[in-house]
């Protein structure tokens, strides 16, 4: 290990201890470490945005590319210039124009992504649940496959019913419908609780892996220091 690596390892060890100090309660050292983290992350994010997006996609086409690309790059340059006015309170309203552009594109991308990336694939998967040839739900046994398919279908519909937040008012028939949906939604809550329990276990495992990793790295550093002194 070079001298720089030793310094880095020492710094990493100290920062780890400072973060772990939160376990005995919120304290100023933990907050300082968090602010170091925010500062470094923000700095890196800015540099990555400049090197990976702004330089190659905005500035290089203007200064290096041919005439067509230069003309095409002028529009985002103007929009970017207008967006920068958001820094100032007085001129922030000028930045609303590029913001409206961003919001429009984001809404379209969100709709396109939700429909093609989630809605259609998930609906197709739900439709195939009772197709014995296509489904590979759990067991080679056809009866069990069908049973599992029915459970998933009921669970999906019940969980979806839990998301029914619309306001229904008026006739008693509608109220009865609403109470039906609420009843099905309660079954859906159980499926959602199981799913969150599953997620919780996954996140806990990841956090435990990170904890073991930090403890091993810190012990390795201490062993290295002890080895240096004992030599």
């Amino acid at each position, binding site marked *: 290990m070079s001298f720089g690596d030793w310094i880095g390892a020492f710094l990493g060890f100290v920062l780890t201890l400072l973060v772990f100090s939160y376990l005995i309660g919120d304290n100023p050292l933990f907050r300082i470490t968090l602010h170091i983290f925010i500062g470094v992350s923000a700095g890196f994010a800015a540099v990555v945005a400049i090197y990976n997006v702004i330089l190659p996609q905005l500035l290089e086409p203007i200064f290096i590319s041919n005439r067509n690309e230069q003309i095409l790059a002028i529009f985002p340059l103007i929009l970017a210039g207008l967006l920068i006015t958001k820094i100032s309170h007085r001129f922030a309203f000028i930045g609303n124009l590029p913001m409206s552009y961003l919001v429009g*594109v984001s809404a379209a991308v969100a709709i396109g992504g939700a429909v093609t990336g989630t809605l259609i694939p998930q609906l197709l998967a739900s439709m195939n649940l009772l197709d014995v040839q296509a489904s590979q739900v759990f067991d080679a046994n056809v009866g069990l496959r069908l049973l599992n398919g029915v459970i998933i279908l009921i669970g999906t519909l019940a969980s979806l019913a839990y998301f029914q937040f619309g306001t229904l008012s008026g006739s008693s028939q509608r109220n009865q419908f609403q109470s039906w949906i609420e009843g099905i939604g309660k079954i859906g809550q159980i499926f959602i609780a199981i799913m969150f329990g599953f997620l919780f276990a*996954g996140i*806990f495992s990841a956090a435990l892996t990170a*904890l073991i990793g930090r403890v091993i790295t810190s012990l390795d550093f201490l062993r290295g220091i002890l080895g240096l002194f004992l030599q």
Partner: protein
Amino acid sequence: MKNPVYTAIAIGVGIVVLLGYFLQIDLLANLRIVLLEWATILVAVALLVGIVNLFVVHFRKSAADQQNRINSIVLIVSMTITLLVAGWFGPTHTYSLWIFNYIQIPIEASLMAILTVMLIYAGIRLLRRKPNLLTIVFIATAVIILLMSGALFGIDIPGLSELRIWIGKVPAVAGARGILLGVSLGIVAAGLRILIGADRPYGGS
């Protein structure tokens, strides 16, 4: 009243991009790519604007005689050093990677590590505060999944690992699918509200 020009831009650009997703017309597809590239640039610029704002806010806090000004000073110093080093040498240079490997990763991994304790604490607190059916189902699922991830104390109890696989493949999938469909429908509804001009979250007076 909102400026109609902003609304027209949001609706026009959004509809062109959306049509580019679903209609196989070369002109629309190419236009969608160009509009998305411009949006990528604007997102990067918006990120820079946000970071400059963060810097300015903490600069003001550090200049004012406030109780926690040391935190703001630390943030400004760490951000400035990172910007100078990574900005001058490039984000993949050895010096930049030194900052990344020995400052950012240890803090990030340690924050993730203390999540272990926080999650256990939150689980116990949930059981004590709301000991209802849903809480018990939630905790029981988490415990079963965690305990059956490997052989417990070297003992492999038959049937339990199958139970774990079944939970992951049947009821958890059902819950996740319901949530995914619900969230997607919500996104589509919110997006359409913007594209018809019912919601205009881009300021203007």
